[in-house]
């Protein structure tokens, strides 16, 4: 009876086959886009050997064309090249910051989860306190005090991004601690340290890894915001945020392309990473289909 009622209502989830096809398309587009981005960032600078800083005042603010697919900026630099270099800087800063944040987060989460008790409560209090300062604001504060340079930006992004990793690692550890294989190790006479390193840490690393991958676009976003506000990277190491900031006067004169393309360069890799992460999560937990439909 319940089943007939269900089938009469129109909004049953679709059958499995099209969903699988969508998933495969999503996987491949995400992977292709991400691969293209990584290749461009790695290979264009050494292979193309064009100077992305080359000023050509006779060609300033040209709209997109065959010669300059993204147009040129206010001193005649090719924007496609500028965007690739900007993405390279943003990606590098994002990667380093995400790696640092993952190390901090895993260490803190592991300490809280493995030691438990008072240490756990104290550490999680600190995590909560950190979480109640808006992240961009905390980042702005750190950068304002330590400016200028690349490292203040990396540190500020890393300092604001380790919280979720710490929480994930801690809760994973807590759920693992009561598993039989840990009991077996304890009764086998393994030390606390050995259990943590041999049994617990390897089990939480995939989760921490997924968190790290997802963190990279977020870290890039943070860096771009700081750079846009004039608090981020120095202008000779232009990231995508610097490019958008530098394009403001051109934009107010009506030229949209120096603003549009750096932003797209930020969005597209982010969506690709999110798409891949969604597929990965579905594989880890097939019952909970990821909602991302790109």
């Amino acid at each position, binding site marked *: 009876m319940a089943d007939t*009622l269900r089938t009469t*209502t*129109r*909004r049953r*989830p*679709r059958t499995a086959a099209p969903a699988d096809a969508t998933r495969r398309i999503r996987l491949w587009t995400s992977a292709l886009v991400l691969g293209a981005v990584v290749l461009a960032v790695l290979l264009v600078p050494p292979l193309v050997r064009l100077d992305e800083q080359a000023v050509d005042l006779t060609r300033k603010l040209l709209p997109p064309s065959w010669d300059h697919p993204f147009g040129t900026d206010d001193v005649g630099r090719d924007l496609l090249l500028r965007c690739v270099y900007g993405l390279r800087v943003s990606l590098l800063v994002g990667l380093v910051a995400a790696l640092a944040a993952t190390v901090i987060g895993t260490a803190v989460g592991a300490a809280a989860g493995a030691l438990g008790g008072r240490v756990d409560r104290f550490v999680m*209090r*600190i995590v*909560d*306190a950190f979480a*109640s*300062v*808006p*992240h*961009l*604001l*905390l980042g*702005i*504060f*750190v*950068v*304002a*005090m*330590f*400016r200028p340079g690349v490292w203040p930006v990396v540190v500020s992004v890393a300092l604001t991004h380790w919280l979720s990793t710490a929480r994930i690692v801690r809760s994973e550890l807590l759920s693992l601690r009561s598993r039989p294989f840990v009991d077996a190790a304890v009764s086998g006479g393994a030390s606390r340290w050995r259990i943590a390193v041999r049994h617990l840490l390897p089990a939480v690393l995939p989760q921490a890894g997924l968190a790290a991958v997802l963190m990279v*676009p977020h870290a890039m*976003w943070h860096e*771009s*915001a700081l750079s*846009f*506000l*004039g*608090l981020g990277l120095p202008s000779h190491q232009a990231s995508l*945020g610097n490019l*958008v900031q530098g*394009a*403001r006067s051109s*934009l*107010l004169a*009506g030229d*949209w392309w120096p*603003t*549009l393309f*750096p*932003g797209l360069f*930020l*969005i597209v890799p*982010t*969506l690709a990473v*999110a798409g891949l992460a969604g597929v990965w999560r579905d594989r880890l937990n097939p019952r909970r289909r990821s*909602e*991302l*439909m*790109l």
Partner: protein
Amino acid sequence: MSRRLPWAAMARMTGRRTLAAVPVLLGVTLAVFAVAAASPFDPVKAYAGTAGLTASQENLDQLRANLGVDRPWPAQWWDWLTRALQGDLGDSGVMRQPVADVVAERLGWSALLAATAFLVAIALGTGLGVLAGRRRGGLLDRAVSSLAYTLEAAPAFWLGLLAVWFFALKLGALPAGGLTDTASDTVTAGQVATHLVLPALVLGISQLPWFFLYVRQGVGDALEEDPVRGARARGLSERTVLTGHALRSGLLPVLTLVGSRVPELITGALLVETVFSWPGIAAATVQAAVSADFPLLAALTVLATAAVLLGNLLSDLLYGLADPRVGFDG
């Protein structure tokens, strides 16, 4: 809702949270001073500016003593804290007025912008969320959801700049920034309204994705629950089912979440107010950071933390009211 509100439980929760907020806020102020002390930032140089380059060491030392920054940072922190509790937050160098005045002047404008932006996000998010949630997996749902994820990935400052280009420059329909026209020196409601449209729209749209996705999820799930099936079986119209049943149980929990989104709102405001030169408190934060104006930056950081804690409390209180099973124990 005719039942009496559980005032006592709510008051207890508020009290507990206020007590818990004290150490957090103290910790944040302490950390702010510790970070500043560990940094190469020198308040004397910041205060003296270019005059500091030619001033004698004697004068600089005098200035250091006058500013009270010749002592170790815990003493400075204690000083600042005791004064702050009496309402004196120090003087802002970049704004050339007391920090408390900066906050008082600008808080209202930020609140206006944030409230309008939330209204935009709630109106658009509810409308689109219901339409998408009714037929999850349908064409409209897929289109709007994809757009939502794209918007989530798009930086608010970039959206703001593109909005300026399109609406202010291309169409010439709306002003590109500020609070009033440059020519006028009085603030009128009409001018503020036209200058508010673009920043509020951009800030609202930057908050839209999560709201839309939650409403979509909530309404979609509610449509598959028994009360809705019962209502349909009784032959109630689709509209009644949607507004009376699905929307009520799907939307209410989402609305209570608004308070917990204060951090994202502040992040968005920092970027949007800067793009549109909105004279709010977030734009002042950025200016304070750019010119290393420590007294203003420290006060605004603590204020933002307090706003986040308040938002969390509000959200939990409302959630407890909307769903009595949750209660007020947190």
